[in-house]
């Protein structure tokens, strides 16, 4: 019964996160399934492009943020003094709203993004966003790793490792490979994905609202696409232009929330 439930859960997760994978299929494949107006106006192409860029942003941020979080979490437990220093810096970063961090990361490069070609500008914009998202997700991610790792290190069986003469680095390396830490890492990854998704789309929406199509970030975001078609909800508009990317974002978020919930239950 539990096996069936697990299979159903995985199928459900795959279906919900499908928009991210389908975005990589050429948009021409879906042209017959949507109203002609969406194809002719170029909306369908923009929709695919925005979710393609969203998937790149999510994967890049998750890999970069996980690498940093695991390293910082490990170092924090290895050296308590260094860990305290990291914790103070990360607490200060956490006290600044993430949307503000993203705005300040973008402001300096806005000139560069406006001056350079579309491809260079898109790459630069993605890099800046990945950095901004990593900065905002790092405090919680590092805390979520170093607290259980330090708990494990102070448990009895870890003391027995020490009596065998294992170094602290080696004990921590062994502990990082336990089921509890693997579940913790899964939860941290899901949390990073969710936060990045929210930040990317909210930021894209705000910038599109404030600056129009001339604003940065230069990379397309589903949030910017929704903002560009926000008038579709007014009388005479086509609500599908607003709701299609919104519903796709909701399904992806539900998938990440389910992942977060599942790994929480496994950890408990």
């Amino acid at each position, binding site marked *: 019964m539990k096996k069936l439930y697990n299979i159903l859960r995985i199928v459900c997760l795959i279906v919900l996160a499908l928009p991210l994978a389908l975005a990589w299929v050429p948009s021409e494949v879906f042209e017959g399934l949507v109203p002609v107006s969406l194809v002719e106006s170029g909306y369908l192409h923009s929709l695919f492009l925005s979710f393609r860029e969203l998937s790149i942003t999510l994967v890049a941020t998750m890999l970069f943020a996980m690498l940093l979080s695991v390293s910082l979490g490990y170092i924090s437990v290895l050296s308590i003094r260094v860990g305290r220093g990291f914790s103070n810096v990360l607490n200060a970063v956490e006290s600044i709203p993430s949307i503000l961090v993203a705005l300040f990361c973008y402001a300096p490069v806005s000139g560069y993004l406006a001056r350079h070609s579309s491809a260079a500008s898109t790459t630069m914009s993605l890099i800046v966003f990945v950095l901004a998202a990593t900065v905002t997700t790092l405090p919680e991610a590092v805390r979520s790793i170093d607290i259980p790792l330090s708990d494990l290190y102070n448990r009895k069986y870890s003391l027995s490792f020490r009596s065998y003469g294992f170094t602290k680095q080696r004990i921590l390396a062994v502990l990082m490979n336990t089921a509890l830490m693997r579940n913790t890492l899964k939860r941290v990854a899901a949390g990073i994905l969710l936060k990045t998704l929210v930040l990317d789309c909210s930021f894209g929406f705000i910038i599109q609202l404030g600056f129009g199509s001339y604003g940065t970030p230069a990379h397309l975001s589903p949030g910017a696409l929704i903002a560009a078609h926000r008038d579709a909800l007014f009388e005479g508009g086509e609500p599908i232009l607003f709701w299609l990317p919104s519903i796709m974002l909701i399904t992806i978020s539900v998938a990440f929330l389910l992942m977060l919930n599942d790994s*929480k239950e496994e950890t408990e």
Partner: protein
Amino acid sequence: MRFLRFLVREFLIHGIVFAVAGTVILSGFYLLSIGAPIESYGETVRSFFLLVSGSEDFSTAHPGFSSGRIIASGAAVTLPLALMALIILTLIALAGSAYAVTGRYLARHHGHTGQERLDGVLSLFTSILAAVPLFVGFWVLANAFGSDAPFPIIAFITVVLGGLSWDATNFLKTDMLSQVETTHAIVFSTLGHGLGRFFPRPGTYSGYLFSSSLPRFIPYLAGKVPAIIGSVTIAEIVFSFPGLGSTLLDALLATNTDLLVASVFILLCVNAVVAFLVKTILFLIYPRWYEKAI
């Protein structure tokens, strides 16, 4: 002595010093990366002091934004919205956890599984609401009300969509549920007190469990203040309220460094004020827990 230490730490260091340091670091970073001439740094510092002192001469190069107006926009829009959102968030988390914890108690000890099942359905529903992007909810609301949307509804949307209330309820629920099978909770349940199904009132079963979770819940709420402020900033921009979010965007549009620095500083101050209020509650109710938390 303990109260003095609390004031120095939370008001002076985490409040004033963090707000000033945050503004200095962000502004310095901004000026450095746009390649501003050296005299711009001096002008920005001067302008910042004029803002803090409430001078009429603030940002003379960019008329239209007085220091009083920026501070007022924070006090009249951002702060009340943030406080309202914080109160609604707390109420939702309390009601959700009380319902979940009494449902678990009834299922485990009396075999009544109805409430626990309903809680499962409600959890799924709140998860779906949490997955709705905040700006989508705001725009739908703006479509219905325009710029006249009432503050309480905006504050409600701020916490219900985007995951804030989902996360807070889950945090408190998990903490309270972990106590259902403990000896002290079982003993309390035999004393004949009410359950407190919908709210953890004092003297009820859920109220008893909540009193044990409160010292952990308050620091959690303090940690969520920046997320609330960030969400409120998005609301201000979407509804075109003359709050700090809109001022910040105006500053970016006009590349007005003085205004940018001023709005960031006031935003960080609002952030610090709300966090200070939450920590003061923790200190007043549980001074030992506060000491332990730091």
